[in-house]
């Protein structure tokens, strides 16, 4: 069933709104001619489906942690209708073949769109450029490239990549982490790491790469995207670069908008993440950066890990946290409840802006003619996070047991109800 009349919903300004969907597309009121279902969305807010530009689906290669299917389930449960698969899989997504495989898997499950991000270098080893044009011209139509998980550290390689993607108006998304300054680093370098005896990961290791890459992008006039920005210094670098007209964009994760490095004091590796949790000062600067548009989008960096990779001593644990199912609630808590943004502005940063940046033309707004990718959220209810009940195959969430605001009630993809919180297990109905 992909024709609907959604009644009694609220829009992002809080006004009453109806949405008409015919054969999977948004239509004007009078064009609703096919048999359709009615949905009473009393008390729910209607917004475009969320779009994630930074997701780790783990398939191929690490299916013990997550698969495209389980990640898709987690995505729609979090209100996402499009996710972008990072290429650090096994094998690495550095060829047309692998990106197409991932793309088709996403299509076959039919829950949300899966858009692969291609690797910048072969094997993500940072030395040889991968066949970027081949990936761009494949069925997956890759436009964003990243070696995420690793930094493109060699400045010459980064320069070449930035120049080369201009062929198809592409974007290089940098995971900013100077490898020499972060060898075996475990957590943010600062007062807490000194106290805990964990090797520090200094902010400068991130900021130095950001500064360098901004200058490179400026010099060759190309598009740079900064993945998971985490420091006040980084926000300021991006802000100044934008003022000069450099084509740089940036993302922030939900967890970096809320959590600080103090949480490492328990040595609970749930809080071990790359890039690491930083200080309260950084959290506040990131929030201000997202509010004023210096940071363009929220991206989850959803990083599933099996239990044994986290249930051990800190230095042996893997880096990463889940993000898809809690993203909207965490951002709502950090940004809207704190008064820094309106829900409309937040929706833009989690939906319209990422869709525009990545040119996912079927997502990000609900104008007439657009595929019906949207979500109904109850902004007045709250929910308790139960790690075991999450749809992701892995359970490494830092929010287990927390009471969070904003409940995703229903998610629609191409007009099909793919997630219904109340009637779970009936996907595709």
């Amino acid at each position, binding site marked *: 069933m992909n024709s609907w009349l959604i009644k009694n919903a609220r829009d992002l300004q809080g006004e009453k709104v109806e949405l008409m969907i015919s054969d999977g597309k948004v239509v004007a009121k009078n064009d609703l001619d096919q048999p359709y279902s009615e949905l009473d969305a009393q008390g729910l807010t209607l917004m475009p489906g969320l779009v994630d530009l930074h997701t780790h689906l783990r398939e191929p290669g690490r299916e013990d942690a997550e698969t495209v299917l389980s990640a898709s389930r987690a995505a729609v449960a979090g209100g996402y209708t499009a996710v972008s698969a990072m290429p650090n899989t096994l094998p690495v997504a550095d060829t047309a073949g692998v990106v197409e495989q991932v793309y088709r898997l996403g299509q076959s499950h039919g829950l949300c769109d899966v858009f692969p991000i291609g690797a910048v270098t072969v094997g993500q080893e940072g030395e040889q450029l991968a066949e970027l044009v081949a990936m761009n011209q494949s069925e997956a139509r890759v436009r964003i490239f990243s070696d995420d998980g690793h930094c493109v550290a060699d400045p010459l390689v980064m320069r070449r990549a930035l120049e080369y993607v201009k062929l198809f108006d592409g974007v290089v998304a940098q995971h900013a982490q100077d490898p020499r300054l972060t060898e075996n680093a475990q957590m943010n370098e*600062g007062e807490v790491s*000194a106290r805990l005896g*964990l090797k520090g990961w200094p902010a400068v290791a991130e900021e130095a790469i950001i500064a360098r890459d901004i200058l490179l992008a400026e010099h060759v006039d190309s598009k740079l995207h900064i993945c998971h920005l985490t420091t006040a210094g980084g926000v300021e670098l991006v802000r100044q670069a934008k003022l000069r007209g450099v084509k740089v964009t940036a993302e922030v994760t939900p967890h970096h908008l809320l959590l600080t490095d103090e949480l490492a004091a328990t040595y609970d590796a749930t809080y071990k993440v790359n890039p690491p949790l930083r200080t309260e000062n950084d959290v506040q600067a990131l929030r201000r950066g997202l509010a004023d548009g210096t940071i363009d989008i929220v991206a989850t960096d959803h990083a599933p890990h099996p239990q*044994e990779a986290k249930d*051990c001593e*800190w*230095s042996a644990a893997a880096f990463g946290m889940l993000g898809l199912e809690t993203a909207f609630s965490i951002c709502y808590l950090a940004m809207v409840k704190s008064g820094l943004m309106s829900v409309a502005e937040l929706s833009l940063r989690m939906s319209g802006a990422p869709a525009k940046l990545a040119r996912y033309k079927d997502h990000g707004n609900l104008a007439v003619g657009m595929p019906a990718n949207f979500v109904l959220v109850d902004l007045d209810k709250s929910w308790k996070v139960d790690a075991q009940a999450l749809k992701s195959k892995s359970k490494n969430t830092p929010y287990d047991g927390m009471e969070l605001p904003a409940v995703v009630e229903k998610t629609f993809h191409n007009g099909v109800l793919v997630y219904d919180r109340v009637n779970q297990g009936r996907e595709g109905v």
Partner: protein
Amino acid sequence: MRDLLSINDLTKDDALEILDTAVQLAALSDSTNRKFPTLRGRTVVNLFFEDSTRTRISFEAAAKRLSADVINFSAKGSSVSKGESLKDTALTLQAMGADAVIIRHASSGAPAQLARKRWIDGAVINAGDGTHEHPTQALLDAFTIRRHLKQDQGDLAGLKIAIVGDVLHSRVARSNVLLLQKLGAKVVLVAPPTLLPVGVEHWGAQISFSIDQVIAECDAVMMLRVQKERMEDLFFPSEREYARNFGLNAARITGMKESAIVMHPGPMNRGLEITAEGADSKRSVIVEQVANGVSVRMAVLYLLIGGATSRDLTAQMGEQS
């Protein structure tokens, strides 16, 4: 006190209780190597993932003098070297009924994991975790200082202690800074800037790059072991340069206060952080530190598992129902 993971687990009174108990135990052990029946029937496990003969033997001696049964587990050649996780190793020991587990591990926070996740039911004693802490070392150091400079009584108020060397990587330094300050002493850290952690300015200690500038006002000088491998990670250019500027040599010793003592947690790199004159001088209490370690560890074991533990109380409740 259920576990001893960090000096932060202790109030000042807790720390003094340990030291005072150790004074009594040391007095009783002086002439004879007597045993006490106090921990008879208790099982103490030495869970050492890192090599350390001296600390392990010290704990073993302490436990045996209290008539506890001691089981030694060292990582080499064990299931751990075949890839068994910390969790599984802990659960195996738990199944054998350990009342106390003394753990030394290369990862900061490993003892905290054992305790927090309660993979181990009994008391967890941190014998050194990565670069985080080594609480019993700090306790025996404080005991030694108090013996020489305070007649075994009270706290360390009015004393100034220098800790010299690789503070960045030293768990002994971290525990000592916490404990010495808790007991009222002033601490000065002396090291090249590369070996001081970012954030050290929050520790409440004075920082100095020159041992000569501070040594005359110190009541105790604690030398830390400097690993030669640190040169490869560019922490200092050469052993010679380090020893010349930060080593405790004969000239520096003569500049010390009359009553001041020289300490070292061991093992020493003779010629690097300390010369033979330093190690063997009349001021050196390095050998005595080792003996004091047994008394202090006996005190810790007595206070943690000598009385009723949570396991005892659970068992008692079971009997009553």
